[in-house]
Structures are given as C-alpha cells and as structure tokens.
C-alpha cells in the first residue's frame, strides 16, 4: 500500500484530493493543504491539559443539587451513580458510570498514550493506535449525556416548593472538559499514526 507522502504528494486532509508537491490550497474543497497538520501535537496537548484541568473540579464539585421540600442536597458524579444503583436502576447507573466516569478518564489516558507513542516513536502497533483513535473519535460526544441530564432536570422540574433541581459547578466543568478533550482528539493528525510504518 502506497501513501501520498511516499511520492511527496499532498493528500487533502478534508476531501482526499491529491496534489503535487508545493500545493497550497485544495482544488476541490478549498482547504489549506498540509503535508501533516501544523502544530498538531502542541494543539492536542494544550486542549488535553485544559480538559484534564476541568475534569478534576468536575468530579469534586456537585453536578446537581436537588431541593425536596426546601432541603437542598448536592451530588457529585460518583454520588449520583451510587444513588441510581441504590434505587435499583442498574442499567442507568451503568450507562452513567461509563459515560461520565470511565470514558472521560480513559479517553484522556488514550489521547495521551497516542500522542506520546507518536512523539517518541513507541513500538505500539499502528493497528492498535488506529483502534484507539477511532474509539476516542467515536466516544467523545457521548460523555455529554450527564450535562444534558442536568440541564433537563433543572429546566424541567419546577414544582414549587416541593421539588426542584439546581445545576452544580461540577456540571459546567464537566461540559468544558468534554469539549476540550473532543477538540484535543480533533487536533490529532491521524496520518501521523501511520508515518514511519513499513507495509504490514
């Protein structure tokens, strides 16, 4: 399997049109042409570190408070999951545990591993790196579930003094963390995954 870079050609990152050396703008889609995206790794790390920075308060501060008969009680992500499990909603507890706890941390770890393995030429198989990349690309948006739950409960449940929900500071930190890690994954030039790999 030959790649455009084997010939010094530039494949458009957006539409795949092939251009000879020195091309500036894609004739098909008008995107700027790059052999590899400029500063891909710096952008990735900047967004990833910001994402990690927000992920910590996202787990320490309450995501959601409920006010039942004037009695206010806040829950962090993990406390919210425990509440679901205690009331027997194991499916929901499982979904939220995955979407809001396991995946955000796992995703950060995967992006960092990918970046380090590319930057330091670690002997990870490109096949494995590719699977990890696909996973991160696919899963990113699903972590937003909990943010939408908070918004829905707050906006929906206004039953006078009986019952109300209020968003906690953790919710916005969590949303920002998800957005930053999505941007971090998008900053990665997937073509780097296959560079320096001889045909398998």
């Amino acid at each position, binding site marked *: 399997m030959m790649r455009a870079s084997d010939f010094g050609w530039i494949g458009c990152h*957006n539409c795949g049109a092939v251009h000879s050396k020195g091309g500036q703008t894609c004739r098909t889609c008008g995107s700027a042409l790059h052999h590899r995206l400029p500063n891909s790794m710096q952008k990735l790390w900047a967004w990833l570190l910001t994402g990690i920075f927000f992920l910590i308060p996202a787990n320490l501060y309450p995501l959601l408070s409920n006010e039942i008969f004037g009695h206010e009680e806040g829950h962090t992500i993990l406390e919210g999951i425990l509440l679901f499990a205690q009331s027997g909603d194991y499916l929901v507890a499982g979904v939220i545990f995955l979407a809001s706890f396991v995946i955000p941390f796992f995703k950060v770890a995967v992006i960092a591993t990918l970046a380090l393995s590319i930057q330091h030429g670690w002997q990870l198989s490109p096949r494995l790196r590719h699977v990890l990349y696909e996973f991160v690309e696919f899963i990113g948006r699903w972590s937003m579930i909990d943010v*939408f739950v908070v918004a829905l409960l707050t906006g929906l449940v206004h039953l006078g003094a009986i019952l109300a929900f209020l968003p906690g500071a953790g919710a916005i930190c969590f949303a920002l963390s998800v957005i930053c890690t999505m941007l971090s994954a998008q900053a990665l030039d997937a073509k780097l995954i296959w560079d320096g790999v001889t045909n398998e």
Partner: protein
Amino acid sequence: MTSLPDVTPTSDDLERRAWARLFEADPDGVIACPSCDTLHVAETIAPGQVARCKRCHFTLIAPRRDTLNRTLALALTSAMLMVAMLSFPFLTLTRQGLSNEVSILGMIGGLAHGWYMLLAIVVAMFVVGVPMLRAAALIYVVWGLRQKRPPRAAREVFRLAEAMAPWAMTEVFLIGTGVALVKVAGLARVGFEEAFWIFCVMVLVLALKNASVCRWTIWTMIRERQE
C-alpha cells in the same frame, strides 16, 4: 477500491510508476485517504456500495441512489421537525396536584440566567443550533447542485457542514432524556408530550440524512460544476 489492475504486487517499483502515471494522467483519478494518506483509485461504484480505505477502513466513497434529492428531502424534513419540536411542550411533570409543562425552548430559557447561562448555551448549541445550521448548510449546497448552478459559496458551506458534524448531539440528548426520566420517576409523574415524540422522529431523520450524504460524491460534483 481495487488495487491497480496492471500492477504485480511483488514489484514496488512498478506500483510506484503506475501510481505516478495515473496521477499525471488525471490527478482526480486518485484519492488519498483523508485519515491515513493511503492512495486509492477513484472509481465510480454502484449506489448502496461502500468503498473503504484498505488500510484504516475510513469510508471513502458511499454513493446513494438519488443522493441530492434524498439529502434535500431529509434535511428539509429535519428542519421542519425541529421547528415543530421547539413549538410544542416536551414533557409534563405532575406531583401532588402541581403540574409543570416544559418545552425545550422553555428549558433553555429557564436556564439562561447567572452562570447557568453556560449550560443553556451548551444545550442550545449542541442540541438545536448546530443540527439546524448543519441542515441549513446542506440544503444550501444540495439545492445549488440540483439547480446545475454552481453555488458560489458551496465549498465553504459544505466544509463548514462537515466540520460541524461531531458537535450535533441530538441523539446524545435523547439518551440524556431517558436518564433524566429515570431520575424523576420516583419523585413525580411524567407525561410525554408532542415535542418528545417529534424529537424521537427527528433523531431518526437526522441519522438517515447523515447516511445519505456521500462526501466524495458531493465534492466531485462541486469541483466539476465549478470548473
């Protein structure tokens, strides 16, 4: 995507020369996978078939029968469903005689004060704004291509539509609704209103719309009409 027919896979040099010839003859006869840079021969394949990258399985070409009309119809439908969804109530909560009916706009509006505003912006953007902008962008591009008139900004608009794709989160919101319902199930009685059902249909239509767009087909049309 078949490999070159006139190439013996044992000979690197022959393959190299074959690619170079092909590229010189017609640069648009060759595609480099946008995800991994592997070269492929651009071939017109039958509607319904999918050509994936040999190396990373990225979808390169996935033409649909009647792709322009289908995309236009689905994008228009999704836009109309969104407008309808926003103008009807979404859910009703009842507890001890107190009842509360909320629409999605009402929910966003209810959040729009103080720092809750950030949450309102997140929902408004990812659930309503981006999917609608994306549908509008596709309508503009596809409408223009259907008229056989090259839309002046088609390239920029289609690029924008594609870049927005990961940020349209209607299906994530639907799962979120399910979780929120479980959370209030013990606390209040929940009634599903029109907007909820419209939302479910809209998620389906948006998924069909995304599947009806073949990027390569659209880009090829845009290039050919602009020449």
